[in-house]
């Protein structure tokens, strides 16, 4: 049995609480890193992180990229979309193919 966690600033993520997800409001990226490490070691299979914090946490996030769990998914926060999530998909394509042949024109 696994859980789903959400990390981000409180305003962006408090709604997920109502859906029954575990919400972890953080104020800084370093705090977020600690929470993420903790979640990865416990029973969390999916962790959603707001893009704003994720940008500053790439080092830790990349560490879990090739592990089966947790699946770390970036979501836009309340302050808007930074495009970091889309960039992550492009990064996968680039890693696999060598260059981004699918989404290079949009």
């Amino acid at each position, binding site marked *: 049995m696994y859980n789903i966690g959400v990390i981000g600033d409180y305003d962006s993520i408090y709604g997920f609480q109502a859906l*029954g997800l575990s919400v972890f409001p953080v104020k800084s990226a370093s705090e977020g890193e600690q929470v993420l490490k903790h979640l990865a070691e416990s029973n969390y299979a999916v962790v959603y992180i707001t893009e704003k914090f994720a940008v500053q946490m790439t080092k830790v996030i990349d560490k879990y990229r090739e592990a089966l769990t947790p699946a770390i998914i970036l979501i836009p926060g309340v302050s808007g*979309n930074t495009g970091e999530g889309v960039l992550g998909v492009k990064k996968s394509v680039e890693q696999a*193919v060598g260059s981004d042949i699918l*989404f290079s024109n949009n």
Partner: protein
Amino acid sequence: MANKVTNPTRMELTRLKKKLVTATRGHKLLKDKRDELMRQFLDLARENMELRLKVEEGIKAANTNFVIAKAGMSEQALNAAMMAPKQEVSLEMSTKNIMSVDIPQFDFKQKTADENDIYSYGFAFTTGDLDDAVHSLSEVFTDMLKLAEIEKACQLMAAEIERTRRRVNALEYVIIPETQEGIRYITMKLDENERSTQVRLMKVKDMMLEEKYHYSERN
């Protein structure tokens, strides 16, 4: 490439020949694996992008609703409303094997079946905007979970493709040519040895005959 020291022996030659066969076969198999992985990956990546755009759009809409909801209520009231969620979600995870890559499959379970349990508050002190906001978020949730599944699969497959590609290249451009070079070197060396033995024997034979019959003195 022949800077590696190879013993020019028949045993080494047999070993290298066996190695070449294995390497060629491995190269072919890995190339096939890479191609098939790539085919599946490209489909998955396209789906991933589509789903991500959809989810981002949904979350963006939900966020707007939450901002509106927050504007209409005091922060304390909002915090109190969200304090004790009724609904709880847990995940079941199984793995699916695509070309030797284990990818996760998520199946979520809600604690209560009642879909109105996402509204974890009394309606007296909250605005209708909050209901809308929570509802819009719950609508996008299934897609979010699907996105998690697909995006993770994409990441895992991308890593596997990269590894396979490196292996294919290493076999194609390093191992196989090196082995072929080794085989060529040993064959040449063995042939050369054989020729020198032959010449030596002929020479010795000449010398022995000369000793016995003294051909050169007769002429």
